[in-house]
């Protein structure tokens, strides 16, 4: 990733893995020339918990709860992608009502996550008042989440073939109250983030990711949409009930008429997405048909079907940070998956840091990095071990292993 420069004028600045500006363990090595960043290297792996390896020793129902704990913030998106992969492999038809309920949960999570991000971004540029303001809003959404699912963070609401809890008429007043509260406060948020001088100064023209780079580096989610790339699994694949809900790509030109791909644009995209999510929830509640919650209420029956399945499935979902992909393969012998592979959005969004950060000042590192909403715990699951627990694998070796694995899977 990085070429060693020998020039004397630059020096190296390591940041992390434990550093007050970082919320999660990750390590950067910056090559600095005065105040300017010449080069960046990222080293990952501090949060590696061997989730995929563990998952291959559990059955699919247990994995839902493991997938939930890949990341506490995307605790719907990961299970969602996993469940869809299993449903894809086993051919399970999900009842329509469940699809709508899934949309509602996914969008609630997106609102929570984006508001959380807005607070963190404000904190990164030293605007702590806004952090508190946004997190106060977030508590309202968490209250609703708790009311609907029973939990604030890890919701355990999805299951293979449907969802575990219904939303009934009794729930409606509280839901609408919260949504109205969000709508009332949306303009306030928008005013703070988009009209405030400080925010504009710090975010406009900073951390630019050009359209071509976003495409080339496969950025996903709001990071790529802010650069004008129209990429959103909800629209492109219209999974769950998104197909019925008339949803569009959100790009910054909807508001400003132009795309710059800077931090400011990423703020715009996320704010607009909060609004979009509120509307989606309203629509989903309005259009939700009646019907079953799960295709098969008996978990053991589902597991028995999975045991007989010999096949693979891919599940994609749009997490708040971008596209998450889960792949599972069952070999028809056990209820544990033969392979489980997760690709979290931050994986794609880390490489764009390099073009974003090059040429910026050291002080811009936190806000630029935060602008992609990185989630390190999502990213660190992959490390290859050999018999001696040796983690050191270089790129060629990794590539070779990867090719081998592809061949193995194709057999």
């Amino acid at each position, binding site marked *: 990733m990085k070429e060693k420069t020998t020039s004397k004028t630059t020096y190296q600045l390591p940041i992390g*893995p*434990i550093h*007050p500006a970082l*919320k*999660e*363990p990750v390590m950067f090595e910056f090559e600095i020339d005065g105040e300017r960043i010449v080069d960046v290297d990222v080293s990952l*792996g*501090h*949060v*590696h*918990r*061997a*989730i995929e*390896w*563990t998952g291959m*020793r559990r059955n699919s129902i247990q994995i839902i*709860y*493991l997938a939930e*704990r*890949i*990341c*506490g*913030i995307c*605790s719907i998106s990961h299970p969602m992608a996993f469940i869809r992969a299993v449903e894809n492999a086993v051919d399970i038809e999900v009842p329509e009502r469940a699809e709508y309920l899934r949309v509602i949960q996914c969008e609630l999570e997106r609102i929570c996550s984006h508001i*959380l991000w807005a607070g963190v971004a404000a904190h990164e540029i030293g605007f702590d008042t806004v*952090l*508190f303001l946004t*997190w*106060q809003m*977030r*508590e309202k959404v*968490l209250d609703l989440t708790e009311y609907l699912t029973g939990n*604030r*963070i*890890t919701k355990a609401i999805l299951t293979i073939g449907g969802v575990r809890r219904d939303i009934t008429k009794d729930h409606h007043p509280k839901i609408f109250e919260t949504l109205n509260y969000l709508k009332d406060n949306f303009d306030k948020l928008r005013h703070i983030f988009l009209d405030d001088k400080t925010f504009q100064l710090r975010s406009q023209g900073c951390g630019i990711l050009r359209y071509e780079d976003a495409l080339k580096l496969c950025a996903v989610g709001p990071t790529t949409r802010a650069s004008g790339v129209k990429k959103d699994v909800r629209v492109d694949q219209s999974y769950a009930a998104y197909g019925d809900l008339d949803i569009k790509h959100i790009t910054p030109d909807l508001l400003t008429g132009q795309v710059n791909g800077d931090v400011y644009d990423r703020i715009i995209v996320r704010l607009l997405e909060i609004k979009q999510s509120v509307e989606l929830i309203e629509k989903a509640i309005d259009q939700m048909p009646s019907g079953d919650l799960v295709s098969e209420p008996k978990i053991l029956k589902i597991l028995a079907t999975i045991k007989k399945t010999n096949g693979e499935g891919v599940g994609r979902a749009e997490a708040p940070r971008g596209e998450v992909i889960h792949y599972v393969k069952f070999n028809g012998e056990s209820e544990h998956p033969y392979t489980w592979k997760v690709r979290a959005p931050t994986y794609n969004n880390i490489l764009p840091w390099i073009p974003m950060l090059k040429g910026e000042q050291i002080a811009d590192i936190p806000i630029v990095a935060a602008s992609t909403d990185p*989630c390190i*715990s999502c990213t*660190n699951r992959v*490390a290859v*071990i050999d018999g001696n*627990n040796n983690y050191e694998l270089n790129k060629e070796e990794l590539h070779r292993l990867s090719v081998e694995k592809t061949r193995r899977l194709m057999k």
Partner: protein
Amino acid sequence: MAKGLSKSFKKALWVYHCNSGSCNGCDIEIIAALCPRYDLERFGIKLVGTPRHADVLLITGPVTKQMEDKVKRVYEQMPDPKAVICVGNCGNTGDVFYESYNLVGPVSNVLPVDVHVIGCPPRPEAIIMGVAKAWVKLETLEAKK
């Protein structure tokens, strides 16, 4: 308020938060405890940027192999008297990750944990309770001196 705590606090409690490989669930609940709804700061409890200023170490996550020495180093940098609060099931027992090959945790394998806060993630109220308990420990240590 927790039993054993003097009515007027002798000093404000400064907390350092260290993530040893958690899923973020506990971390956001810790921040939530500091934010307006629960507002830990009204007791003078605040997050600080370096372990050298901290009285209490809030640790989340099951301690991955890569983080083991870093966590120890953070602990050693804290001045005495100090207390360690382990927040979340995965730091306390391993939780869903218990059989993973890359853990040295639970945290009590690495550091002397004073307060265990259970939950995955625990509610902010539980975290506040944990901090109050650590406070009691620190005041007792202080009184012994």
